[in-house]
């Protein structure tokens, strides 16, 4: 036990004397959360919109005013005709244009037909943005239609009341915080342990440690103990940032959330140990961690790309990504306020994965020694 304390102490010296390690440990999480929280967003704030008003009547003016008054658009420009849109899009001045054809009001109130047309033209070089913008614009036009039809005649209408549960404002930061937590903990814990163990192999100190009476399991445990603590601090940091900066709630039990985080940290650490048994030097360890963990965690965990829209083969493959299960657990606890009864299955998956990685590492570690 005494020897173990000496080991943990030594490992802590290593961490706090290596600026690169410190930067990855604490710099990366902070930078990433600010980047994802502020810069990368799916929800759109106010956007610029241009109009081509060929009607110039009371109703076209009303429609434009209604759009301008909405929370989504600023009417910034009036273009002379449809032909000038292309030029305006190319200059990236706005992404969406509303065209109101001549006799808009007249057509609207024609006794028999009562139909008028408007056209929405969007710059689809960014398809996601274009879709969102046109959706917002259509919604405003529908509302406008509702307003003017109550003036003329009582309409038959089905009123749709759509509610977005658990994230009513559709804030993408709600989605990012659980994802980021999984990504950062996976990267930091796995990569750092893989690097720290391979560093001892590279410098030759591992041989001296193995020639000492310390059992190999104690050597590994001594090396990862500080990282368990630091990763836990990291988890708290991300939760704290999410809560104070972006008001991401924790509806469920905080204790359950932290316990699940510790489990996921252990999963990542065991993966790191496994990588270190394969990699010969620090560079290889880093490459394997980045290539083998970062990419699958980003792509296949459901963090950024929804799993349900992926091909079946990829969905199946995603089951082997620990982060997928952790993100489900986090969303359940943080956003839905679910308890143990809802997350025990995912927890079991993580637990089994961790045990599997540990057993495999022990086996590989022994092979290297004989």
């Amino acid at each position, binding site marked *: 036990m005494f020897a173990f304390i000496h080991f943990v102490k030594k490992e802590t*010296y*290593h961490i706090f004397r*290596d600026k690169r390690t410190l930067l990855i440990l604490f710099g990366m999480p902070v930078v990433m959360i600010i980047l994802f929280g502020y810069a990368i967003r799916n929800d759109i704030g106010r956007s610029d919109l241009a109009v081509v008003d060929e009607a110039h009547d009371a109703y076209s003016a009303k429609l434009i005013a209604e759009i301008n008054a909405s929370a989504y658009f600023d009417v910034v420009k009036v273009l002379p005709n449809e032909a000038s849109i292309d030029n305006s899009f190319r200059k990236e001045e706005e992404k969406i244009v509303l065209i109101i054809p001549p006799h808009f009001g007249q057509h609207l109130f024609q006794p028999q037909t009562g139909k008028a047309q408007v056209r929405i033209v969007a710059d689809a070089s960014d398809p996601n943005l274009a879709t969102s913008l046109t959706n917002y614009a259509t919604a405003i036009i529908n509302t406008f239609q509702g307003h003017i039809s109550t003036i003329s005649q009582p309409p038959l209408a089905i009123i749709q009341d759509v509610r977005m549960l658990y994230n009513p404002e559709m804030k993408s930061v709600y989605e990012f915080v659980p994802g980021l937590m999984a990504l950062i903990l996976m990267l930091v814990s796995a990569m750092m342990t893989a690097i720290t163990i391979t560093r001892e192999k590279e410098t030759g100190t591992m041989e001296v440690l193995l020639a*000492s009476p310390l059992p190999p399991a104690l050597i590994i445990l001594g090396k990862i103990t500080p990282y368990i603590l630091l990763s836990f601090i990291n988890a708290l940091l991300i939760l704290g940032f999410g809560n104070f900066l972006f008001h991401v709630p924790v509806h469920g039990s905080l204790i359950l959330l932290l316990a699940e985080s510790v489990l996921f940290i252990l999963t990542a650490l065991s993966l790191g140990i496994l990588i270190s048994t394969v990699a010969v030097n620090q560079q290889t360890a880093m490459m394997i961690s980045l290539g083998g963990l970062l990419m699958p965690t980003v792509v296949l965990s459901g963090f950024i790309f929804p799993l349900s829209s992926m091909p079946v083969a990829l969905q199946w493959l995603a089951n082997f990504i620990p982060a997928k299960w952790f993100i489900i657990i986090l969303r359940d606890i943080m956003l839905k306020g679910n308890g143990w009864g809802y997350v025990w299955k995912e927890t079991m998956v993580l637990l089994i994965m961790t045990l599997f990685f540990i057993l495999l590492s022990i086996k590989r570690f022994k092979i290297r020694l004989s």
Partner: protein
Amino acid sequence: MENKIVQPVITAESLTKKFGHFTATDAITFQVKKGEIFGFLGANGAGKTTAIRMLCGLLMPTSGNASVAGFDVFTQTEEIKKNIGYMSQKFSLYEDLTVKENIRFYGGIYGLSNSGLKEKTEILLSKLKLKNEARHLVKSLPLGWKQKLAFSVALIHEPAIVFLDEPTGGVDPITRRQFWEMIYEAAYCGTTVFVTTHYMDEAEYCDRVSIMVSGKIAVMGTPDALKKGFSVKTMNEVFLKLAR
């Protein structure tokens, strides 16, 4: 050598290690007595490091028998590890730890008590004249000092045997000389020294040497006897004759 207590602390009988079809050490047999300085020589790839690793309990032999400090290398590696010191080919201290931290760490993992550590640290620092550098990072020390420190640290738990795998690689002649004085001192205090080296002048300092050629021990004996046997003047010539 005749006047030393004759009692083998290392014995190897037909000790063999195979990696697949490659035989790294091929049935080597030798004995090392207590307090002896045993030079284990050979060209690169002759199988020295493999042999050392088997004796230190780092590598399981394929066949043969060996015991170190009275413990069997197949079944009692844990006991062996408690009774040996080991200095590897690569520099074995932590560069980003201070001199004192390194001493305390290695003492700590060999189970020294807190008071024992304090005492040992004081003795080592004054012996190595490193008192002023105690709080300096090891990477700031010159290589010769590092090697001397590494040797002292390998002896911190007062082991019966110390294994030195090319301890003087890349060190200047004066420091090498001082290093060998430390080896003599350790041997005088009863520690058995098992050392591999490339430098043939260092072979002259050993009580007894063995020279390995492609996995086998080609010759073994005192440096004087070997030189006589080959009728040459230096160990270097002995080595060159064997290599041809």
